[in-house]
Structures are given as structure tokens and as C-alpha cells.
């Protein structure tokens, strides 16, 4: 089965790796920015999509369908983001006679409408947050505000993944924000419908991985906790969720199963819940695609989720029963982002001038980064995922810490030190961090004084050497040869 991967970056490479293991030829697609990307080099073939702007390449349904036809692909894997939750795309793939590796288009449509998904969840008995499952109308704010308890969240019906959520603390704020949210939703999702949802204070984010064959068989593959979020973007995820009781977990699995059965779910999906401090769960949404954080589930179940997706697409059946799915140990993922922690974690751009990846026991690295790669602002700032497995949570944390310390990325600042700070914080260590944890998280300055002095020594020695080179050697053309030359090596070793 020839598979076109309609994505880029680490997830494209990750899908292609399993394709290769299964002997399925893979086809990469690329924009101008990704001409030399690792997925392009890894795939058996590649097709140019269009300009760098996502709307003209990775979000361009016609271009992707054309590429798939041109390459003779039999199936299309959408990855996450881009067109992965686009009903029209899934339909176009099927209408072009190819297999869409994901849920049926109607499932994507339904789960994409967050209110519709909540309605169905409510119908089949899942705990759903109180409040009307209705779109809000900006024309009648006073009326609308009746019965609303503040603070309240304003969410886009076609949003999801934490994007475009606003928190209103008063009726006045709500009125303003509904207008702004509609504006943003129209631009981002092409639909300005928004709805209100009560804020669950100090909620934890827990999600259940499901896998269905579209013919009634549904499996659940344990839960993940993704409470460590910044600006509603997940940063650290783990499986299982710490501190849940057996009955809580079965309650969760039952709920996910019920909803998936109601949808006669096909392929991979994630049912997301909030857990309030009193231990109550509330259904939030369904993500009808593979998740960024899927590796933690793979590591504790031993099941390659992409392989399950691909084999289901190729053979129309799952190769597991619920009894065969056993959880083993603990896995934690940390997202390495090209961000400047000194500048409020703003995404940064630059070239990767040096790279050394972690290795050794229990460590998995998913990345499409390479030395010389340009980090641009065109797509998102995720540059690598570091996933650690350990026999228990403590071992997994220590391994992840060890691996993050080994990860050398030169050329752009990253959030690695911040991730390390979170991992070593008391609340994370005991498994009690909720989704608000990072809002006022402060890094504990940790014995970096000695490192600062070392940095000062290095900077002074390099400055000294440059100056000397300037004095002794030819006055021009010095920059390129800054770091080389036997003379320098001898001089510096001589100390």
C-alpha cells in the first residue's frame, strides 16, 4: 500500500518510519520551505505542493489530492494539524479512490463541531460540563449572560486543541471577548460560531486513546495526562495519569468506549476529559487523529499506533483484542520547542548549527531536525519530542531529565531548561500539577552560578583568541576561520 503522508516535520517522518517497517512505499509532500527536509529525503518519493504559506501547500486540499494522484498513492495519512481534521479533505481523498487513514469524513465533521460532539456525549451518558450546548449570539449578550457563572470560557465551535480559547471574568469582558473570539474563529477556522463553557478551576487534562475498526470493535489503550500546558499548548505528557484510582480509570475507559461506540469509530482517536479537584470527569472533545503525544501510549502498551492505523487501512481489521493490551511501566514526553525563555517563550528562528541527540536506555527521540536546518516562523515551533520510558514514574522522570540534559541544540534557544525546571519541581514530581500549574510557575535557579563563571571563561578565551588572530594574522577574512586552525588548537590546549 503506497502511502502519501500529507504533513511535514517529525510526524511525517514518524509515519514514514512505520511505512518502511511494513514495506509500504511512502510519498512525501513539501512546500518551498521544506524542499530539503528530512521527510523528503526519507520518503521513497516526494511531490512538490506549493509555496511556503501553509494555505498554499499543506492546507491546500486540491494540491495535496493532485500530489496523491500523481504519485499513485493508495492511501493518505494526514498526521496531526493541517488537514487532519478536515472533513472535506477526508472526503476528497475517498472520492479520488484512495483510503483516508483516519475516521470517516462524517465522524470528522461531527467531532469538529464541538457542540455536536458534546450533545452526543451527553446523550450516551457521558459526564459533560453544565451549560447549554448552544452557540452564543453576539447580538443578545444580556440575555445570554443569564445563568452564566463567571469566569467562563469562550470557545470556537470549530476550534479545538486549545486554540482561540478566551476566559471572561465578567459580563462586560464576555461581550467584548465574544466579538473578538468570533473574529479570530472566522479567520482561523472559517466559522465564527462560538460557545460558552464553565471554567473548571484547577482541572487536570486526561485523555483516553481509542482505536476502532469502524465495524463495531473498539479498543481503549489507556489514558494520558497532559496537564502541563503553557498558553493551552501541551508541553509535557505522560501515560498513565498519576494518582488515578482503578475505578476512576475504568470509569474513564467506559465513557470513552461508549462515545466511540456511538460514533462507530474508525482508526485512532482521543477522547479528552477534564478532571476536577473533587475527582469528577467531564468530557471535552474528541480528536479524530493521531496526537502529538501518541508515543507515550506506544511506550507503555508496546503497540505501534501508526502501524495499527496503517494495517487497519490496508486490511480492514485490527490485530489486537482488548485483553492483549497490557500497560507496562511509565512514559513521559517533553516537547522541545524553538523558543526564547528569556523573551516570554517567543518562537525564535535561526539555523541549527550543532546537534547531538540523547540516547541510551529507555529514550526515544522523534524529530526531523538536522544540522544545518533552518528554523523558520512558517510552521509551528516544535522541533523535537523526547520520550522516556521507565519501570515506574520516578524512573521515567529521571530518564527524561537525563535525556534533556544530553540534548545539545546549537543555533536557536529552546525550552529545554524550562522543561527541566518543571520536571524537577515538587508538584510535578508528586503528580499534582494541574492545567494552571505553569501560569505562575517560577524556575528555581539551580546551581548555575558555576556554569555562568565557566561561560565567562570560555567567552573571554574566545575573545582573546579572536583578538590575537586579528593582530597576528591577515586583517581581513577572519570571521569564517574563527573556530579553526592548528595554531588556535595548540594555544588553547597549552594552558
Amino acid at each position, binding site marked *: 500500500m503506497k502511502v502519501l503522508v500529507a504533513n511535514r516535520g517529525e510526524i511525517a517522518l514518524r509515519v514514514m518510519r512505520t511505512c518502511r517497517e511494513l514495506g509500504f512505499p511512502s510519498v512525501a509532500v513539501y512546500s518551498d520551505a521544506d524542499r530539503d527536509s528530512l521527510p523528503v529525503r526519507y520518503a521513497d518519493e516526494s511531490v512538490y505542493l506549493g509555496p511556503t504559506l501553509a494555505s498554499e501547500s499543506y492546507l491546500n486540499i486540491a494540491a495535496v489530492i493532485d500530489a496523491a494522484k500523481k504519485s499513485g498513492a493508495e492511501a493518505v495519512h494526514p498526521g496531526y494539524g493541517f488537514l487532519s481534521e478536515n472533513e472535506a479533505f477526508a472526503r476528497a481523498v475517498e472520492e479520488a479512490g484512495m483510503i483516508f487513514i483516519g475516521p470517516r469524513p462524517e465522524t470528522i465533521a461531527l467531532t469538529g463541531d464541538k457542540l455536536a460532539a458534546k450533545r452526543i456525549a451527553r446523550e450516551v451518558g457521558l459526564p459533560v460540563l453544565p451549560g447549554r450546548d448552544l452557540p452564543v449570539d453576539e447580538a443578545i449578550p444580556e440575555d445570554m449572560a443569564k445563568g452564566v457563572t463567571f469566569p467562563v470560557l469562550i470557545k470556537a465551535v470549530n476550534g479545538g486543541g486549545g486554540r482561540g480559547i478566551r476566559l471572561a471574568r465578567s459580563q462586560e469582558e464576555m461581550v467584548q471577548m465574544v466579538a473578538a473570539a468570533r473574529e*479570530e474563529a472566522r479567520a482561523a477556522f472559517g466559522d465564527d460560531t462560538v460557545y460558552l463553557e464553565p471554567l473548571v478551576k484547577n482541572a487536570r487534562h486526561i485523555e483516553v486513546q481509542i482505536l476502532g475498526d469502524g465495524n463495531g470493535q473498539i479498543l481503549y489503550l489507556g489514558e494520558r495526562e497532559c496537564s502541563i500546558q503553557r498558553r493551552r499548548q501541551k508541553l509535557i505528557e505522560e501515560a498513565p495519569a498519576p494518582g488515578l484510582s482503578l475505578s476512576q480509570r475504568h470509569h474513564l475507559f467506559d465513557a470513552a468506549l461508549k462515545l466511540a461506540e456511538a460514533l462507530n469509530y474508525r482508526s485512532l482517536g482521543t477522547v479528552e476529559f477534564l478532571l476536577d479537584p473533587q475527582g469528577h470527569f467531564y468530557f471535552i472533545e474528541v480528536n479524530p487523529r493521531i496526537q502529538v503525544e501518541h508515543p507515550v501510549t506506544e511506550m507503555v502498551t508496546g503497540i505501534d499506533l501508526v502501524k495499527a492505523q496503517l494495517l487497519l487501512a490496508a486490511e480492514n481489521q485490527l490485530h489486537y483484542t482488548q485483553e492483549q493490551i497490557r500497560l507496562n511501566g511509565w512514559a513521559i514526553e517533553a516537547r522541545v520547542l524553538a523558543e526564547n525563555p528569556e523573551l516570554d517563550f517567543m518562537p525564535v528562528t535561526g539555523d541549527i548549527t550543532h546537534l547531538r541527540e540523547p540516547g541510551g536506555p529507555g529514550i526515544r527521540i522523534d524529530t526531523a531536525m538536522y544540522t544545518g536546518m533552518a528554523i523558520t516562523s512558517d510552521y509551528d515551533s516544535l522541533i523535537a519530542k523526547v520520550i522516556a520510558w521507565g519501570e515506574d514514574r520516578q524512573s521515567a522522570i529521571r530518564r527524561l531529565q537525563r535525556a534533556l*540534559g544530553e540534548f545539545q541544540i546549537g543555533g536557536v534557544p*529552546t525550552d529545554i531548561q524550562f522543561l527541566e525546571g518543571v520536571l524537577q519541581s515538587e508538584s510535578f514530581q508528586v503528580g499534582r500539577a494541574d492545567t494552571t500549574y505553569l501560569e505562575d510557575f517560577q524556575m528555581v535557579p539551580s546551581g548555575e552560578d558555576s556554569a555562568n563563571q565557566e561561560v565567562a571563561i570560555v*567567552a573571554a578565551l574566545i575573545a582573546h583568541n579572536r583578538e590575537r588572530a586579528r593582530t597576528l594574522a591577515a586583517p581581513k577574512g577572519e570571521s569564517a576561520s574563527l573556530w579553526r586552525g592548528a595554531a588556535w588548537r595548540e594555544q588553547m590546549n597549552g594552558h
Partner: protein
Amino acid sequence: MAIYKVNVGKKIFMVDVTDDQICVDGKPVNASLTPLNEGGLFLLRQDNRAREMHVQAQGNSSYAVMVNGRHVMAQVEKGNVKNKRRAEQVDAGALIAPMPGMVVNVLVKEGQQVNQGEALVVLESMKMQMQLRSPFSGQVSKVSVASRTHVEKGALLVQVAGD
């Protein structure tokens, strides 16, 4: 012999480099530096420890250093010289793009009166939207960008003239 004043993480270190000794803040240290490759990777040995650092020169006197996954800037000044270069004077009322991205929305027009903290432009970069706000109250004297256009880092977006 040369003394370097090095600023790292808000601390000042005076590093004195001679042919046979290195002193930091007057105290001799037992250190040596080895370049490990041509990509800017160095190994600093100090006593029994060896620490890898990745160093990129930025201009004549700044170094971006990656050490233990942490990125720090080191500013080096020849200690005996007092030639502090003044930071570029940026017009305080100029709203500059802090990163490359897409202008999602320009919320003001030229001539419009704005309050301090009022959102002027919505910029999106790498999935993240951010509102850029007016640094003070005043009048919009210039709007340099339009919605749905791409801007580079450092581009002037809007100019505000103070009251």
C-alpha cells in the same frame, strides 16, 4: 595580557588572560579550552571537570552559549577600555514586530487616538496569536502594514506619537 569584563546572566566576571594563567575576579583558575569541531563546540576543562559548550559569536563582542541545554548570552568587553557602545536608540513609539509572522489584523487607523495598553496589531507566528499593544497613550501617526501580510522580525508595524 588582557583583562576582559564578561557579563553573563546579569553577573559580571573579570577574566584576566595571560599566556600561562587565567584568573577570574582575581583568583587563578585551572582551565583550558579545546575546540571540538568546526561548528562551534568547545570543551572547557577546569580542574577535573570537562564541560561542553556550543558558542556562536554574534557580532564583535557577544556570544550565544549553549551549556547543559541552557542558552545564555555573554557580553565581552576589553576591561581597560571604556568604549561602551550605546544601544541602538529605537523610537519609543514604534511598534516593532518581535518575530516574523503574519499580520492577522490591524486594529487601528492612522490618526486614531489610542490608550496605553490598547491592542494595535494582532500578529500570528507558529500557531500563536499575540496582541501588540500601545506603549503609551497618543495618536497613531503611521500604519505600515496591512492585514494578512507577512512581516519580518523587526519590521515597523505602527507608529504612535505620544500626547
